């Protein structure tokens, strides 16, 4: 499916044609370029974006995904298939910019095939010039949903500050070609290979009436 986008009134909207690759890959056939700089987003917005990827595919170095809750390219690694990899999911869900170290927020259409500059190793050991940093500890009182747990080789997003009773967490992650991208119960918090990482610059939740101090208002997540 090819699409051409009309330039809108939003600043920095990029008009794009279908991204092409040298073979008839799923990405080459269906994905397109659409992205824009935006104001800071809330953690809830990031989570809503990430959860669209639930039940979609996994592609190392990806990616691009639709919202049909099916694997459009099953068991086909390295083939320009559907889905993000773990660090690509975090890059897009955190609305990171494509420029190394750039602050600010950038919205990437889920159908734009982009991974970003940051691999899991970068999330695990961020330098001070990056728009995310390691948290001082992994206590539950410290982490907030849409923080990440990262190790050399993998990264996933804390989906909710609620947690199963065993000390685990509900983690939104791109977990592999077979199990795909979804919410899983994980024990990364108590695994010494993982650190907790926080994206910088979150917007506070808009509200009326009595408002919370920070952007940590959390709604219960209904799983479709």
């Amino acid at each position: 499916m090819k699409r051409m986008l009309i330039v809108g009134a939003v600043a920095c909207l990029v008009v794009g044609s279908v991204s092409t690759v040298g073979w008839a890959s799923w990405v080459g056939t269906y994905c397109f370029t659409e992205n824009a700089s935006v104001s800071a987003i809330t953690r809830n917005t990031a989570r809503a974006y990430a959860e669209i990827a639930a039940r979609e595919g996994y592609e190392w170095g990806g990616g691009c995904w639709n919202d049909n809750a099916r694997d459009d390219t099953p068991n086909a690694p390295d083939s320009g298939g559907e889905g993000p990899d773990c660090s690509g999911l975090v890059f897009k869900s955190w609305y990171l910019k494509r420029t190394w170290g750039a602050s600010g927020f950038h919205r990437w259409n889920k159908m734009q095939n982009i991974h970003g500059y940051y691999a899991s190793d970068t999330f695990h050991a961020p330098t001070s010039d990056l728009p995310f940093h390691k948290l001082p500890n992994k206590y539950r009182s410290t982490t907030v949903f849409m923080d990440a747990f990262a190790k050399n080789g993998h990264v996933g997003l804390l989906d909710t500050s609620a947690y199963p009773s065993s000390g685990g967490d509900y983690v939104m992650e791109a977990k592999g070609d077979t199990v795909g991208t979804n919410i899983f119960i994980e024990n990364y918090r108590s695994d010494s290979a993982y650190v907790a990482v926080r994206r910088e610059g979150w917007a506070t939740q808009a509200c009326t009436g009595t408002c919370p101090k920070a952007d940590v208002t959390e709604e219960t997540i209904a799983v479709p």
Partner: protein
Amino acid sequence: MLTADLSVPPRTWTLVAIIPWGDASEQLGLVTDVHRTPIPYVPRSFTIAPDGTIWILDVVKRRLAHYGADGTYLGAIGGFRFDRFSPRPRDVVFSNDRIYVLEEHSVTATLVTFGADRSLQRTQPLDHGRPVVLELLYPSPTGVAARFDGWADEVGAGPRGIARFDPPGSTFAQFLPGVPLSTGPSIALEASSDTDLELTFTGTAGVAVRPVHLRLVADVEGRQRELPVVAGVKIEAVGVDRVAIFVQISPAHPDDAERFGGGLWLLEVGTSGPLVWERLPEGEISNEEQARHLAAGPDGRIYLMVPTKEGERIYGR
């Protein structure tokens, strides 16, 4: 107070069996290709049958593999799925001489039992009609018990605790005071903070609560230094009058974690006998996908499953 000392090596367990990885039927499935998965796909669980044989949840090969007490291959039950659109196996346990397999799909639990012809019979346990999140299974005097972590259609919401499903397709979870022991009492485990646990013993004599505080120490230039810590704890194995708790410990601060690492410990408690607190051996293959590490044998022996480069190691003590 229990102290995890990183300078103390793991206790030596008795090696019961090594089951190699590979494509042959007697071998177990393993996927480590980082283009396929950032986390190795390893067997997720195992259980020791009343006859002492070993059943291993071989998810890569979509089966429940059966081995003798010495690791000799005996066969397998197939019919499981391992893809993102189907419930995939998470845990296996024997309860009342019957095998139960727990499957999960988008955190929603499904229970699998087996017909006389080894056909898979799937039922979905519910609580007040809602799908549920179950983490691990436990034997129960009737039906099967499980670690219940709320409703699957509203992640993070709902009751928590140990629940029994009898029959497996029950529409209401029957909450228990804890993991049931075959002798009658039950033991419950709750984490009240990153380092504090509460063990609740419920029996005919009443209820007793035992708080446990975990601390982590490391050797720094010949002196013992305490490190801020986070711990994950799960009751995994259920013996006659005891439970074996799997404890994963990490320094809370990233610099400490990088310098000292963390470790795995066994906490064994019961209605009688001494408390056991010892460090567990680990393998070279990261085991994030493994849901169960400890299982109890019919003789009360505790078994440990560890993925290593040479194969899946089954230890006993």
